[in-house]
């Protein structure tokens, strides 16, 4: 079994002409690149740093808007896609729709929206929104379907309306998971948005691709380092938030959910 997988990897590598020899030959070039970058990093100007920070802020804003809007649009759709809330006639088509939104990677959505609204951050936001919608809705309806049947049964046999059931049982029972999804998605989207600039959809990726094109690798790497630092910080914050609100309440230890 493992042998077969190894053989498959080798065969596929040969097919796309990926050779370890070339990689080894490339290594000295990497060293050369590092040296070059180190030299250039010492020449980073205030202006460049300003550009980097501003572009990173734009990226975060895009990710934030896309995540929030996508998440908010996903929630009602995922309620309609849950088997324990909606009838078959509703959840089957809804799931189909969400699966379609999920099929395209965000960069493809970006290309599509650039055609529609022209290049720039707006196209990027739309792309992130669509991608988030498809992706997070699946996480949401899976959590909603995992809500314990007993509170649902006892509440629905009191005669609650569907909306009351959602407000008083579904949302509180799945709140910690839903919040977890939001944090996860934002975190993920900051990284996604950083590359959308590659196709001209705004954000810091634009600088990276431009400097790379003009062979100014040092400057490109500087911008990459800014992305790296930001992602680390956001990751750290979201771990803290997750600890505070998600993990504890799932364990049943004191935590106040909003």
């Amino acid at each position, binding site marked *: 079994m493992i042998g077969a997988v190894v053989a498959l990897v080798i065969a596929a590598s040969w097919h796309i002409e990926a050779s370890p020899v070339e990689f080894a030959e490339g290594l000295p070039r990497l060293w050369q690149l590092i040296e070059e970058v180190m030299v250039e990093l010492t020449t980073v100007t205030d202006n460049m740093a300003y550009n980097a920070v501003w572009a990173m802020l734009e990226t975060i804003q895009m990710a934030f808007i896309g995540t929030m809007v996508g998440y908010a649009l996903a929630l009602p759709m995922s309620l309609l896609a849950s088997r324990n809330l909606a009838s078959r006639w509703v959840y089957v088509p809804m799931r189909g729709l969400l699966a379609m939104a999920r099929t395209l990677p965000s960069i493809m959505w970006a290309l599509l929206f650039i055609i529609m609204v022209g290049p720039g951050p707006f196209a990027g936001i739309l792309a992130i929104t669509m991608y988030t919608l498809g992706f997070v809705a699946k996480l949401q309806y899976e959590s909603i379907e995992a809500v314990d049947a007993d*509170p649902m049964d*006892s509440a629905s046999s009191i*005669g609650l309306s569907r909306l*009351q059931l959602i407000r008083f049982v579904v949302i*509180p029972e799945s709140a910690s998971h839903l919040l977890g999804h939001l944090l996860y998605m934002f975190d993920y989207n900051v990284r996604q948005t950083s590359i959308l600039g590659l196709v001209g959809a705004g954000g810091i990726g634009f600088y990276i691709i431009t400097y790379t094109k003009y062979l100014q690798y040092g400057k490109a790497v500087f911008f990459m380092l800014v992305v790296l630092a930001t992602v680390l910080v956001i990751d750290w914050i979201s771990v803290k938030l997750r600890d505070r609100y998600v993990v504890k309440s799932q364990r049943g230890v004191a935590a106040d959910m909003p």
Partner: protein
Amino acid sequence: MSYHASIQSETHDIDKAEPDSCIICMEDVWASYDARSTTIREINMRVSAGSNYAIVGKSGSGKSTLLKIMNGLMIPNRGTIMVDSHRPDQHNRRFQSAMARIGYIPQSLGLVRNSSVLDNVMIGALPRMGALQSLLKRYSEEDMAEARRILEMVGLSGKESRKAYMLSGGEKRRVAIARAFMQNPRILLADEIVSELDSVTSRDIMDLVAVMQRDTGLTAIMIHHDMSLALEYADRVAVMQEGRKIMEMGIDHDHVHILDFQSGNLTTQEILEMYDDSQK
């Protein structure tokens, strides 16, 4: 719009009730979860309004399933059942209007873990609230006063904002009872709400139901794990075995009479032993 006004007229003395009047009537009811096995067989049951009707039986004998049938969560595949003059079915429009006043406490209580005690209790009042008010959690003064009165009655005053998962087992059961009482119920279906509690707490909880029955004429159908509580509090006790009701007893405080005896696999000896055990 308090309980007390409307109640006096309702009879809660089973002996005075007409022999034919039943708030829950089952005739030859059969039910199954799947095609291969039958869980409930040939059940005939008449529960008089205002009575306390206990159901006992071994684990797996179909007690909880019987309650789900009364509640319309499960539809029998044979026979007829009427609850408060409606055919119980959660999708039946007519039954839906009755549901608001049928309290159902499943074996696991069915509380919303992450919600406060107050929000859990208010679930019982939601059907009579306006749609928008309820979604915004704008509870009316009347409902708040009622909730406070009930929480006081079940001994949970001061714990309104506690999350349900932080409560003890006995407290959780009181919340479930308070939620049912908040419905201003005509019928209470309670699945083993006093099992695995110490006898003082169990009696406290049984007394709450008894008080509610006396004050409002509530009909209670309660599943019990041990026979002694059933004999102490119920007017009638049905014994289930393998999906059948094998015996029904009428209790009038001094003695137990066997009203209906359908031969199950239990021998007379075993039934007597069960009764004896419960007397200890």
